């Protein structure tokens, strides 16, 4: 079998690109010295929210627009998705934060205490108003990574620690690509996973807070992912006590029952980002780079993969190109 493209990196950017190319009858191989996805890559620690409208608070229009197509792409890839929307709440004393968030985002509606109780019974009586982003979705990143891997293996795609580069080289190595992308930087994120059978949430909930914003994503079976801090720097070391306290405290403030939760995981990693925090394709004579997915790995990798495939197979100029 001839290989049309060699993808460097088996993180979310590399796997999504491989999947998109192979679904268009191109043949690819993947090289990653660390092997298949795992705790060594930042995709492993992601939240998995497909929430383009919420992200519109601090990001540019292109992320909101292209991110809207992410859920459909993941569904096509066979990844289980929850289409339950996102709920955005504040603590009583920060209620004006909700007005600011509403002004800067779209595709939401204000819901009152009754509607909040109907959406999330466990939050009944805790907030008198919230923003509901009905069209948003979420997925479990580790399930998504495994699903993509399985699908790729079934198509004969290999993930090897090393191999001869064949065909077009597509560099999806994240921060490791700083050797050729000097304006790439690391942005550290820290997360926690809790088990708390006493609380049931059916959709991601964002708690707006001027100092410690938090999101909490239900993973099912009483498991919740809490994220995420955002610190400049590519430190990949363990979570600090300060961040742990801030994350867990915010969860406790969202619902006191989280006080009894078991902390089953604490994780940290650094995400690759360009100065504008928007991902892009960079073309060099030797390679095509797909990088800078920042905190939007699962939201933006589908659009980046489609863009890359459109360019490679049809010559279409990518919208996000250096």
């Amino acid at each position, binding site marked *: 079998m001839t290989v049309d493209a060699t993808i460097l990196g088996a993180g979310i950017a590399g796997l999504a690109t491989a999947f998109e190319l192979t679904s268009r009858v191109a043949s690819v191989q993947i090289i990653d010295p660390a092997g298949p996805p795992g705790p060594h890559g930042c995709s492993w620690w992601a939240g998995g929210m497909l929430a383009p409208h919420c992200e519109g608070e601090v990001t540019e229009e292109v992320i909101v627009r292209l991110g809207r197509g992410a859920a459909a792409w993941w569904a096509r890839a066979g990844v289980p998705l929850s289409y339950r929307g996102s709920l955005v709440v504040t603590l009583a004393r920060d209620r004006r934060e909700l007005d600011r968030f509403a002004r800067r985002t779209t595709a939401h509606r204000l819901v009152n205490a009754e509607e909040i109780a109907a959406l999330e019974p466990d939050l009944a009586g805790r907030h008198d108003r919230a923003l509901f982003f009905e069209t948003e979705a979420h997925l479990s990143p580790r399930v998504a990574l495994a699903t993509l891997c399985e699908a790729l293996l079934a198509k004969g795609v290999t993930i090897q620690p090393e191999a001869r580069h064949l065909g077009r080289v597509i560099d999806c190595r994240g921060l490791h690509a700083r050797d050729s992308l000097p304006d790439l930087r*690391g942005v550290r994120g820290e997360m926690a996973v809790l088990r708390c059978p006493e609380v049931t949430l059916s959709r991601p909930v964002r708690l707006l807070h001027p100092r410690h914003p938090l999101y909490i994503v239900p993973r099912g079976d009483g498991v919740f992912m809490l994220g995420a801090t955002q610190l400049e720097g*590519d430190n990949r070391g363990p979570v600090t006590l300060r961040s742990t306290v801030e994350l867990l405290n915010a969860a406790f403030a969202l619902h006191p029952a989280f006080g009894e939760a078991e902390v089953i995981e604490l994780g940290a990693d650094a995400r690759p980002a360009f100065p504008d925090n928007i991902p892009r394709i960079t073309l060099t004579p030797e390679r095509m780079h797909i990088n800078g997915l920042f905190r939007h790995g699962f939201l933006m990798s589908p659009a980046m993969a489609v863009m890359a495939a459109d360019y490679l197979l049809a010559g279409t100029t990518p919208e996000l190109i250096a």
Partner: protein
Amino acid sequence: MVAFYGTDLCSRLMLGTSQYPSPKALEAAFVRSGAGVATVSLRREAAGDGTGQGFWQLIRDLGVPVLPNTAGCHSVKEAVTTAHMAREMFGTDWIKLEVVGHADTLQPDPFGLVEAAGILCADGFKVFPYTTEDGILAGRLLEAGCEVLMPWGAPIGTGLGLNNIYGLRTLRAQFPDVPMVIDAGLGVPSQAAQAMEMGFDAVLLNTAVAKAGDPAKMAEAFARALEAGRLAYEADPMEPRDMAHPSTPVLGLAVLS
């Protein structure tokens, strides 16, 4: 031109570097406002272990003097250690000294502040203490060796403006020759203009710009307000009065009794 510790600054606007949507947005805010100083937090913005080099380089590339701060430090020891790290990392002896007294209000700890200021001044630092409008405390900070004061407008991040006009006016009058920067609590440019009209020398901002919908535009708005306020101060404003005072002579009418 305004000077602090003998360094001339090209603008009376000091701008913080945290909480922007992206480094690019941060850079745009500096370019558009012409801010004269960039403040950076070693503890809060990035891991202070040398892994944030990409971000630090970006701050250096802004081309303005860097004023590192000790934000997030709750004790004298922490603040002093952070100041030393900052001096090494940025090659400057300027330090904006924050000693947080209360985690929720972020109110400065006046006792810890004076102690840390004494230690750092003795160690050759040029200290910019983040303080309240309290005149006694200001005196102690000057005794400790500070040559600049940074009284708050309102608690950090609140956007409430100048919370205690009387106290700030008194402080300004009490130490007329000490350069003073209104630090923290401002939300909109009119508040910065007011600080300038009162004779303060500069203003330090972060949240009001970084969390605005368009940070670069808001930064420019503040820069212009500062200019307007300073011009007004230099122009020696009229005194307010209760009785209306016609600006054109009124002829042929009975004189008001």
